[in-house]
């Protein structure tokens, strides 16, 4: 068990290192050097040279990476060009807004989709199965930004039940904050039901064909016991792994939903920084989301043995 944890932790280190290199190189591919971007068009040559020296831009590229990476390890992701704020607190604040939506939506989706997927697999090729599979394929095919618009149209504009756009933080007013969260969470929730239900169904089907399930039925166990005690534990693994991927993918693609509902989250920060050519913030966002993605998947992998102790053996 300990060996498994250590091995998995060590595997994440080179990945994170190459992620850092990629983000660094990516932003350096942009034409123009960071110092002139920071100072703008009005900079004097001497001020430019001074800043270049201060930022270490007169050194070789690997040396520059070393300096930058050293700062990153200390939690210093640089300073925003447009707002002059340090990048890490900026990214962190926005992350809390987006992360809350994503985690709540995925949690609710799993609660609904896993049992639904298991029912579909249990009654394979029945009418219930057809309806569930059809629904999940349909939900999967509707892009979140259109689903969001439709939800906005229905609940916000036609029915007028919920506030249309904007965001209120929990610190200001918890009740209002929840009201503003309903529509974006519903959007992500409906979309993820489709994704998770398919996986839950497929992995349950695979398990239900195995001999031990036939054996359990032959013993005279009720269907309820067969499904929950025997099928569920063995079939949940792939879905659990998928949850990690889904969390990261949603965080990476949340910009569209935040745009629909005017939420000041991490996705909006990234897109606005791309428009504003605010490279330190772009770099910070990319690095942060990739870091979260790797860590979430690491945690998912480390918790995997709780469902399936076999993985630690190999």
């Amino acid at each position: 068990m300990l060996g498994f944890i250590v091995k998995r932790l060590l595997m994440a280190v080179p990945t994170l290192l190459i992620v850092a290199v990629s983000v660094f190189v990516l932003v350096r591919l942009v034409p123009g050097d960071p110092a002139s971007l920071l100072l703008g068009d009005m900079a004097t040559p001497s001020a430019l040279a001074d800043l270049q020296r201060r930022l270490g831009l007169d050194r070789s590229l690997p040396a520059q990476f070393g300096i930058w990476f050293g700062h990153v390890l200390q939690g210093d992701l640089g300073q925003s060009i447009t707002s002059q704020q340090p990048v890490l607190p900026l990214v962190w604040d926005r992350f809390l807004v987006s992360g809350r939506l994503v985690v709540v939506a995925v949690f609710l989706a799993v609660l609904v989709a896993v049992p639904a997927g298991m029912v579909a697999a249990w009654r394979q090729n029945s009418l219930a199965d057809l309806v569930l599979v059809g629904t999940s394929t349909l939900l999967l095919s509707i892009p979140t930004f259109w689903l969001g618009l439709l939800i906005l149209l229905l609940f916000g504009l036609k029915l007028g039940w919920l506030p249309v756009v904007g965001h209120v933080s929990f610190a200001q007013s918890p009740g209002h904050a929840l009201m503003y969260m309903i529509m974006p969470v519903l959007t992500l929730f409906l979309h993820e039901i489709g994704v998770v239900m398919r996986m839950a169904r497929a992995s349950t089907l695979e398990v239900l064909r195995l001999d031990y399930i036939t054996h359990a039925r032959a013993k005279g166990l009720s269907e309820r016991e067969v499904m929950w005690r025997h099928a569920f534990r063995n079939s949940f693994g792939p879905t659990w792994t998928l949850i990690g991927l889904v969390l990261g993918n949603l965080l990476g693609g949340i910009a569209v939903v935040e745009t629909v509902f005017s939420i000041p989250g991490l996705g909006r920060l990234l897109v606005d920084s791309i428009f504003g050519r605010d490279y330190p913030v772009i770099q910070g966002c990319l690095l942060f989301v990739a870091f979260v993605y790797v860590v979430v998947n690491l945690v998912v992998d480390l918790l995997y043995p709780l469902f399936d102790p076999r993985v630690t053996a190999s």
Partner: protein
Amino acid sequence: MKFLERRPAPNAWIGGLIVGSLLLVAGVGAFWTPYDPLALNFTAQLAPPDAVYWLGTDEFGRDVLSRLMAGATTSAWISLLSVGCAVLVGTTLGVLTGYLRGAVDRVVMAFNDALMAFPGILLALGLMAVLGANRYGIIGALAVAYTPSVTRVVRGSVLSLREREFIDASRVMGNSGLFTMWRHVLPNCVAPLTVLATSMFGWALLAESALSFLGLGVPPPAPTWGNMLAASRSHFDEAVWLGIFPGICISLTLLGINLLGDALRDRFDPRMRGLR
């Protein structure tokens, strides 16, 4: 072509029909649309769907149907080209690393895994920042974002193929490594590649629409389904059709691709056979 002998599943029919129609509309849209998709008409602003403008007009009096057709052309091109590039580069890398192994394999795969550590759409967003928000920027960004998946799938197939007898036989016959890869390894990767490429076509179309929706895709006035949806938001309560039709187009296309992808997976992946 043995797989054609069996009767295709209903989802293959429906999916194929939808995707086929999309490609047909995209092909027609490249040469002909009912109206000029860019022509402004200030006498027919925000006209609801009727006999003249079947799907209505937008805030500049442009015909929505024509714009949807032109958008289909743009989206289909961008998706096909980006998936094509990803398949080309990814297959080359996958076959070479899987067949040759060694240090090159380890280095390429390390980078590959790191690229896969980014959620696809995020990587595309980052690359858009560098490549610029235009159609070539999107194609480049999506191609780079999807290449690692292709490399991994192809390399996986090649790793198992290279242990098989017919590959040894080819070597014993004195064929060069390059010939063996081209003639014997590559054709056996086609099945998993087809399944992946079909799904990737859907991912690319969705990503292109999302980027255009964010204003990072094909710049206006050129129509895409994504930027039409984005523009519809300012007129949502007075001209609801502007936000409905592009969304239906994207969803229907994705549905078709998903159904087709499922059917192909059932067909080609023996592990899944009989499960669905």
